[in-house]
Structure formats: C-alpha cells, structure tokens
C-alpha cells in the first residue's frame, strides 16, 4: 500500500471517530456552561443513540428513519431526565448536580439493559456496509457520512447559538445567570433545553457510530470519558474547542493504534491528553477563568 494512501485513509478514519468525540464533547460543554457541572450521563446518551436506533431499525427497516427517530427520542429523554433529576434539586451547586448525573447514568444504563438486552446491537450504515476506493484510497462510506452529519450538526448548532432567541438566551444564562433572570429568562427552562441539546448531540453520535463499532449497553462510560477528554483537550466550556479537541483526539488515537499498537489505543490518547494538560491546564482554547466554575 502506498504511503500517501495510508495517510489519507488514517486521516479520514481519525476525523470520523474524532467527529464522534467532538459531538460528545459538545454535549459536555453545553451542560457545563449552564451549570458548572460535569454531566456523567452524556456517554449513556451516546450508547442509547446506538441501542435505540438498532431497536427502531428492527421496526422501520430504514436506517435513515431509525437514526432520525432515535436521535429525536434521545433529545426528548434528555429533556425528561433534566425535569426528573436535576430540576428537583433544591441547592443546584455544580458538585451536587454532577453527583446527580452519576445516578442518572447508572439508571439509564440499567434501563437500557433491561429493555434492550445485553447483546451487541448493530445495523448497516447509510450506504450499506460499502467501502469505496478512489485512486487506491479505501474508506468506509459510513466514515464519510459521520463527518458530513457532524459538520451539518455543528453548523445548525452554530446557527442556533448565534441567530435564535433561545440560543442567545442559553448563552446569556451561561454568561451571567443572575442577569439572565433579571431580564426575564427562566433559568430552569434553559437548563432543560441545555440537557435536551446535550442529549441530542450524544444521541446522534451514538446513532451514526454504531454501524462501525457496534454498541452494547455498557459502552456509555467509555464513550463518555473519550468525549470528556476531548472537551478537556479543547478547554472545558469552549464550544469550538470541543470540536478541535474531538478531532485531535480521534486523529491521535487512529495514528497511535496504526503506528504503535491498537492495544495501546486508549493509553496513547490519554497520555497525549495528560501531556497537553500539563502544558496548558485549561486546555488548548480554555482560559483559566472558565475553569473556576
């Protein structure tokens, strides 16, 4: 195999898995910015995205329809989860909320195990299980789909935060919750919205990555930690940072497992993460003041 072709293949594979991490990291950051808490349920929503799509695929026998329905459903689960676990918390300080999300994660995982089983779930990609070869470069079509869908999702999120009243209100709450309440923005509804969006990002990530990796009920935590690492890498609370962090982590992991060993895939990416955080404790794009919350 030609060296350049290998490189291109690795870059595409790295960017596609990196896109998944970017989506998960985005979810972490949205909730972090509104609450100051780390949402441990983020990874479970990714897992649910895959598991629910698999279940719906059995009903619809259309991957596209199953993915869309599952993603919307996970977004709704995010909204409901906020209402029944976060909203009732009387003193919503970041540490309490973080602990609540640990509980939410465990319950979510158990419910999926009970209702959808312990067997690995999988389904074909949007273009079947095809690989395409262009000029000797072989890529899985699903990798290209992942990159394209992530890009579309990021553009939509950008539009939402920059152009819509609700998106701006969400930014206002994360900038200054007290001032937000003084202009009449109901912070509790905004928090619910943040959880819904985070779940949406997680759900779509899980729904589009499962054709490549399969999904089981217990994979949420691992995926969550990868997304968390990506968020830390980019600077926690920084939305563009999440995207760069995710892509970078995906590339490091893919190149590491190709050139060193796939056994050390996770070890390599965490080693690089630690190294970067030693040098820049607030992440690549983070400012120290962002972290204090």
């Amino acid at each position: 195999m030609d060296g350049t072709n290998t490189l291109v293949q690795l870059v595409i594979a790295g960017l596609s898995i990196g896109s998944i991490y970017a989506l998960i990291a985005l979810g972490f950051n949205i909730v972090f910015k509104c609450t100051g808490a780390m949402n441990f349920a983020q990874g479970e929503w990714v897992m649910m995205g895959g598991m629910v799509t698999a279940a719906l695929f059995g009903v619809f026998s259309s991957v596209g329809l199953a993915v869309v329905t599952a993603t919307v459903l996970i977004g709704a689960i995010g909204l409901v989860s906020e209402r029944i676990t976060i909203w009732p918390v009387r003193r919503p300080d970041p540490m309490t909320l973080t602990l609540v999300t640990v509980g939410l994660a465990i319950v979510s995982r158990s419910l999926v195990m009970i209702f959808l089983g312990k067997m690995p779930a999988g389904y074909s990609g949007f273009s079947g299980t095809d690989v395409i070869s262009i000029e000797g470069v072989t890529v899985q079509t699903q990798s290209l789909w992942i990159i394209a869908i992530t890009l579309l999702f990021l553009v939509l999120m950008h539009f939402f935060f920059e152009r819509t009243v609700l998106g701006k209100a969400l930014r206002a709450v994360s900038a200054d919750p007290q001032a937000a309440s003084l202009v009449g923005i109901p912070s509790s509804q905004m928090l619910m919205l943040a959880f819904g969006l985070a779940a949406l990002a997680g759900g779509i990530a899980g729904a589009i990555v499962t054709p490549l990796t399969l999904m089981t009920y217990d994979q949420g935590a691992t995926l969550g930690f990868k997304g968390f690492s990506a968020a830390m890498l980019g600077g926690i609370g920084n939305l563009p940072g999440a995207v760069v962090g995710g892509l970078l982590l995906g590339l490091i992991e893919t190149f590491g497992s190709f050139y060193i060993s796939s056994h050390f895939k996770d070890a390599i990416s965490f080693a690089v993460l630690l190294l970067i955080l030693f040098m820049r404790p607030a992440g690549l794009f983070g400012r120290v003041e962002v972290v204090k919350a």
Partner: protein
Amino acid sequence: MPDAAIAPAPEGAVPASTAASLGDGLVVRGIHAGYGEMRVLHGVDIEVAAGEAVCLIGANGMGKTTLMRCLAGLLRPYEGTVGFAGRNLTGLSAAARVREGVALVPEGRHVFKPMTVQENLEMGAYKRLWPRRDPKVAADLAHIYEIFPRLKERRTSLAGTLSGGEQQMLAIGRALMSRPRLLLLDEPSMGLAPRVVQEIFAVIRRISAEGLAILLTEQNARMAFRTVSRCYVLSEGQIISEGTSEKLAADPAVKAAYLGI
C-alpha cells in the same frame, strides 16, 4: 411609618402623585430581609407612585442593595410584601417580575460579557421575543440607540470590552428593552468618573421625564437630589428619614452624612 404625602415634582417633569396613582405604583410594606442569620432590613416601608422618581440614600452596608434584591425578586424577604400596580409580587420569581413591568439594573452592571452589545439589548427584550415576537422591539432598539449613541457605535462589540460607563449604559438600555413601568437602579454611579456619572444621570432624568417610574439607590446624594423629587434615607436597615429632595437637601444631618458638607 405613616403614608407620607407625596410631594409634587419641583420642575413639573414628574407627574404629581395622588393616592390613585399610587395604585399603579410600587408599595413596599414591612420588609424584613437578610442572608441566613444576618438580618439586614428591619421593616422597610416605601412607595413609588406611577411615573415618580425616588431615591434611596444610604451609606455602604445599610441595606440598599438588599432592598433592591427583594424588589426585583432575587432575594426572598423573611417578612413583608412587595406590591406593584395593584398586584402582589412577593412570591414571584425575578423572571416573572419582569413580565409585571419591574426591571432592575443591578449593582455592578452584570452585562452579558461574552455577548455583543446588540445581543445584550435583545436579551433585555427576551420576554417580547420568545415565544412570540413583538414587532415593536425593533423600534425600541432604535430608541435605545438614540438615547445612547455610544452603544450604537459599539453594537457589534462584546460587552466585556466596554468601559465601565458604557457597560452601565448597556445595563440601563437592556433593562429598558423589557418596557418596564418601574425601573430600579442600584448604584448607577458606582465606580464611574464624574463626567460619566453626569451623563448617566442626564439619561435617568430623560427617561423619568418620559414617564417611567424610577427608584434608584445612591451613596452620594448630591446627584440624586437633582434627579428625583423625593428621597428615603436608609440607615441600618430602617428608613430614618423621608421627604422631598429640597427638604432633605436642607436637613443638616443629611447634609453632614450624605453630601459631605
């Protein structure tokens, strides 16, 4: 404290208050408030009639901000009621009070620093943009830019990059965007250069002349006396004196304590 007669404005800018117009105004009765064990307010009664401009004078730590927080719904008093325009606001959240027509420009300004000037102003009109868009918001934005030309120049700048005076203007503009009927201003002159303070108070006089009821707090009463028709003096959590600006400005005790004479 008796329901004191509310004096007419000195220069006719502010409509004369009557018992009837008080029904459209702010009526605060017996507010006891504080933070946990630390009691700050011990039974405060104040009134602001519709369209009236009133100042709450007091040194630092006397409870001015605590009272403002109670009025805006940021702090729940232990006891007492806050009524506005004939409605009891005591149990309402800060966000709900905005809908009732009460807007607070908080101490320290609290603009949304990572957002642009224009986005800050839009957020002031949040309740009029979501879920239904009020078509008058655009005209109000133009009006704010007319009052504060400086904000128009800097409308695409991030609020965090503005000077203190510009941030104060933005905070006032943002509050006005909710179309309040009562504007609460907590220490609008704090930390600002004298020239900027003059500018801010000129604006306050202007919006007062447009008929908006105003309650502001000040440490230094000199500027306030020229802006409002009536003042309360708050000391150690209680109203110790009350009257027209002329009367208080002539009071030797007030002079000594708050005019630095």
